[in-house]
């Protein structure tokens, strides 16, 4: 016998056929899940980043409101408050909010109308605080009391607590969404493996007949669904990146007035890169465990 002069491919063909039509629904489901997971993670990260900046801004500032007092001129008390504040360690700067600025602050609530000249506009002083100088406001309060200037000092902590609560809520919601999406992706991959095994029953029977161990067969499904997860994950992450870019453009390139500044930073890029890998791992592990469990139970 002599071998014919016919060449064969150096690489063996995949034993499990790539059935794009049968795998298409799984591809789309995984793609959507990764898309949503990326958006959840990016949104949670953006909210954390915004809250961090807001919190830092709030912690670094305070507002002194001078209460009306009979027989005392509000403007004069405002000037004296600035002078006293500037002498206290931990207060970097103190600036009086003039009448025009104070009236502008009312505009969001009262609208763009001409306010009566005799409307009592509060006299305010804006303070900038040094980091770690929380006691400066207590000292200022005592000093103003001693100077007989009645004031309310707003250290913005109420707003800070609200922001922290809101951020926590967003993070918990995003984390739950991520957990559900990961669980959902694993369940979908497991279900797809089961149906894939049913559709490829003949191949599995032949493999078992020629002596393939369960882990050998399971590995074929791990590779098959791992690749599928990677491709679907990449498509989902790309979709999320495009959506984030659109959001960035729609919000004035991250400069919308009342919105937190939105940009894709290194962490967001890492999320987009890791997500497909993570999807591949979830699919591969779910497919492997499902196939192994199914084959072993058949062998019992």
């Amino acid at each position, binding site marked *: *016998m*002599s*071998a*014919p002069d*016919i060449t*064969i491919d*150096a*690489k*063996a*063909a995949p*034993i*499990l*056929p790539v059935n794009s039509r049968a795998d298409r629904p799984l591809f789309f489901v995984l793609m959507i899940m990764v898309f949503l997971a990326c958006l959840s993670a990016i949104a949670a990260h953006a909210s954390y980043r915004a809250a961090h900046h807001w919190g830092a801004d709030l912690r670094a500032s305070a507002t002194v409101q001078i209460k009306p007092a009979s027989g005392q001129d509000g403007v004069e008390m405002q000037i004296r408050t600035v002078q006293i504040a500037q002498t206290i360690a931990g207060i970097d700067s103190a600036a009086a909010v003039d009448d025009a600025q104070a009236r502008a602050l009312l505009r969001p609530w009262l609208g763009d109308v001409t306010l009566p000249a005799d409307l009592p506009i509060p006299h305010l002083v804006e303070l900038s605080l040094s980091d770690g100088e929380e006691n400066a406001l207590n000292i200022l309060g005592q000093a103003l009391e001693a100077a007989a200037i009645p004031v309310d000092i707003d250290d913005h902590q109420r707003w800070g607590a609200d922001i922290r609560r809101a951020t926590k809520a967003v993070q918990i919601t995003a984390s739950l969404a991520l957990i559900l999406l990961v669980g959902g992706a694993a369940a979908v991959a497991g279900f797809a493996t089961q149906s894939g095994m049913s559709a490829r029953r*003949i*191949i599995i*029977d*032949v*493999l*078992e*007949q*020629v*002596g*393939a*161990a*369960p882990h*050998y067969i399971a590995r074929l499904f791990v590779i098959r669904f791992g690749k599928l997860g990677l491709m679907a994950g990449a498509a989902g992450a790309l979709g999320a990146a495009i959506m984030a870019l659109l959001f960035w453009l729609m919000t004035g390139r991250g400069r919308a007035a009342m919105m937190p500044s939105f940009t894709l930073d290194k962490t967001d890029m890492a999320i987009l890169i890791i997500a497909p890998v993570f999807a591949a791992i979830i699919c591969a592990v779910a497919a492997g465990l499902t196939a192994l469990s199914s084959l*072993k139970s058949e*062998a*019992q």
Partner: protein
Amino acid sequence: MPENRGLTSPYGMAVELENVSMRYGRGEEVLSGVNLALPAGSMTFLTGPSGAGKSSLLRLIYMAARPSRGLISVFGEDLATLPANQKPNLRKRIGVVLQDFSLIDSLSVFENVALPLRVSGVARSVYAPDVMELLDWVGLGHRLHAQPATLSGGEKQRAAIARAVISKPELLIADEPTGNVDPAMGARLIRLLTEMNRMGTSVLIATHDHELIDAQAPVYNLRGGHLERQR
């Protein structure tokens, strides 16, 4: 007790069935109280009409089915107590040719035939020449890259036989191995199986073609689920 204890082999028994019965689900027994002993290195024929249970008997031996009763041992291993993780190793020692060929449609003829060696972890550069040589010998050397769907019945049968013998199994089980080929190719394939038997492989062939049966080989007849030795 097995019926052909008279056949002795210095290498022991390849297959032993003792009082084996089998039924599918809650149906009637397709095999009933079957006793059979195939000495290592023997060539044995199994005959009987269609539906007599020949394929079921073979399925029990290559572990694709389980008996409802009785003991089966292959190469001295009791299949009932054999750990599940040992079965693949035992299956690697058995070559199987089925009536429906069981070729994988998505793989070429070459890849189908190479499958047992690939599963055993043999390097492609090592098995490729052997596979091509065997395919050439069974007359499929020009069909290496063909998909099974494009093969004739006879070509599929030859590919299935090539796959069964490529790993030089210790036991070869063939269910109607010449059912779809012309007499000349049938004789050629039987010569291949006989040659393998001469080299030490135990061969069990189920057929209803009495012309294929070796005059010297023991013949068992299966009828109504009962096995009888004819000679």
